[in-house]
């Protein structure tokens, strides 16, 4: 597949701790194509934010470091790139929206200064041109009276507006890839809907690829072209949104979808009784308890002897586009061959 904009190959990230090296990303492989939305799903600590930081080489180092693997951006390996080159890439070709719009804006600069900064740096605009462009960006992300807002400070804006400012900053240089790390978690659903509309619209206009990190399966269904599910530092399932959500190949993905309360539950309930929600038993194992084999086996209803011994590779589920790292598919494959 050479139409991929970004290819991540066998990425390993480790952190030095008092207890030794902790491997927080363990062989992550995926790719993003131009103009698509790839959603990364998983519980806290599964490595989804770490993956995003690794792409931009923003992992705090020390204690963290990329131990091995490649991040190929238009055939250039960013893992090996110089720090100067990374500064050209960040905020310019690949940019990021963080989860907390409150803490990721600088409180002592106006929003216009902050949006203009990347334009002055990367596009070489002078202060006046950068300001005009900042006004234009604010208008595009749907902030009313942008000429006035451009001179305001972050504390004068609501949460939804701050997140729009973050998006305006991230998109100012028309990046090829936008990484959005839970961009709406801190926001209300009506504002979330506005932000999602905005991202879709900007994507349509500019062909930006979006890597959307989320834990909300509803948001995945709404936004994703493709989905990648992570668990304990590995990618355990990948496929198109339709494949993963309606025919999940990994027991963990199935569990995540089944344990969600969905709208409409009261219409189905008889006489006010409600069903118990399906649960995934137990908790995510800590990084020190992983041992050998599949990290999900302790919580898995289908665990077999083999699961404790060998880490399952990615098996094709239905067609090449959909894969799941689960031994169940090896069995199916063997049965089909026999």
């Amino acid at each position, binding site marked *: 597949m050479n139409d991929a904009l970004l290819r991540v190959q066998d990425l390993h990230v480790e952190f030095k701790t008092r207890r030794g090296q902790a491997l927080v990303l363990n062989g992550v492989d995926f790719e993003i194509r131009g103009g698509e939305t790839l959603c990364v799903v998983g*519980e*806290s600590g599964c490595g989804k934010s770490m993956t995003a930081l690794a792409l931009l080489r923003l992992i705090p180092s020390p204690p963290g470091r990329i131990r091995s693997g490649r991040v190929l951006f238009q055939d250039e390996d960013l893992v090996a790139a110089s720090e100067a080159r990374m500064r050209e890439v960040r905020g310019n070709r690949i940019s990021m929206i963080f989860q907390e719009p409150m803490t990721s804006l600088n409180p002592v600069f106006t929003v216009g200064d902050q949006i203009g900064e990347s334009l002055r740096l990367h596009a070489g605009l002078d202060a006046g041109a950068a300001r005009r462009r900042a006004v234009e960006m604010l208008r595009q992300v749907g902030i*009313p009276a942008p000429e006035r807002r451009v001179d305001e400070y972050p504390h004068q804006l*609501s*949460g*939804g*507006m701050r997140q729009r400012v973050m998006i305006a900053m991230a998109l100012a240089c028309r990046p090829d890839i936008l990484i959005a790390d839970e961009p709406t978690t801190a926001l*209300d*659903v*009506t*504002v*979330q*809907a*506005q932000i*999602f*509309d905005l991202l879709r619209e900007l994507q349509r206009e500019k062909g930006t690829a979006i890597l959307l990190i989320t*834990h*909300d*399966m*509803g*948001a*995945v*269904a*709404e936004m994703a072209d493709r989905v990648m599910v992570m668990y304990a530092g590995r990618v355990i399932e990948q496929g198109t*949104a339709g494949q993963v*959500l309606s025919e999940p190949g990994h027991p963990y993905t199935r*569990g*995540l*979808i089944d*344990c*969600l*309360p*969905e*709208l*409409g*539950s*009261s*219409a189905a*309930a008889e006489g*006010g009784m*409600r069903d*118990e*929600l*399906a*649960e*995934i038993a137990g*908790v*995510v194992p800590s990084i020190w308890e992983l041992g050998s084999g599949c990290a999900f086996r302790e919580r898995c209803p289908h665990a077999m002897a083999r699961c404790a011994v060998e880490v399952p590779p990615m098996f094709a589920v239905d067609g090449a586009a959909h894969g799941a790292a689960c031994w169940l598919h090896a069995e199916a494959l063997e049965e089909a061959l026999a």
Partner: protein
Amino acid sequence: MTCMGTDTLLSVDDLKVHFPRARQGWGRPAEVVKAVDGVSFDIRRGSTLAVVGESGSGKTTTALAVMRLSPLTSGRIRLGDTDLGTLQGEALRRARTRLQIIFQDPFSSLNPRERAGAAVRAPLELMKVGTPAQRTERVNALFEAVGLRPEQQHLFPHQFSGGQRQRINIARALATNPELVVCDEPVSALDIAIRAQILNLLARLQRELGLTYLFISHDMAVVEHICDDIAVMYLGQIVERAPRRSFFARPLHPYSVALMSAVPTVSGGRRRAAHRIRLSGDPPSPIDPPPGCRFAGRCPVAEPACATELPPLREVAPGHWVRCRRVDVVGGLPQPPLQMQET
């Protein structure tokens, strides 16, 4: 508006919580933030009332006022036969055994230097419930009831996961055998896989112990799953109040409809997103709320009269109350003025 049945446990009548702000300059009047502005509801014993709304709608302030953890400006709060709103000092302290709260953040709501067992035991000691031996027994029983092992009492909060910490919070809230438990976004900070465990636990405890929940949340799917009745707040006021099935089958207030339509669902996906009702702008400031309907400025179906006159909360179907002048009742059936187009 409040009908005091014999099975009503909590009754809140015209509750107002206003916070004065510091003066902004010479000669300017002090501004008042009307966080909760005339809220009334009842909760039947053993049932769950969910209060939903967006940030700043006053749902948490309502919960804190019921707990007497925030100052009351006016209004009445009754728990059974007790007038909670007027209790002071020792009487209030004693009444607190009957109502407890579970907070949103399982990380900041436990003292990091206190062992889990001591945290659960603390309410028993403070309220002088039973003998020390009975307290130990009670803590053991509570740990078991919430799905923790008794030997985990000796661990500190950082040695637990978020879900387990929320279990400790639940055990602590249940220690004094409360009648009313206020749950302030108890699962919002938890991972989705853990959410189901905690929601099931809360439902089981309610069944077994006959607990009454005031459940604060912004997650409509969670609310639909857990509640018996729902109240939707917008800018300090209840705009709609109804039994669960009635509300989720047919939300009436345009804000409720917009809120429901904004929730992304797995089954709805992009089709749903395309038919969403789009609200523009942000809610107005609670400092100087508009005189009419507080949603009028963002409402897609507002009329000129909406902006001038605050509509009352009126009952349009059995138990279904709505604060909107555009809801008509045709042939006994209330008609929502705004509807999400189903595909």
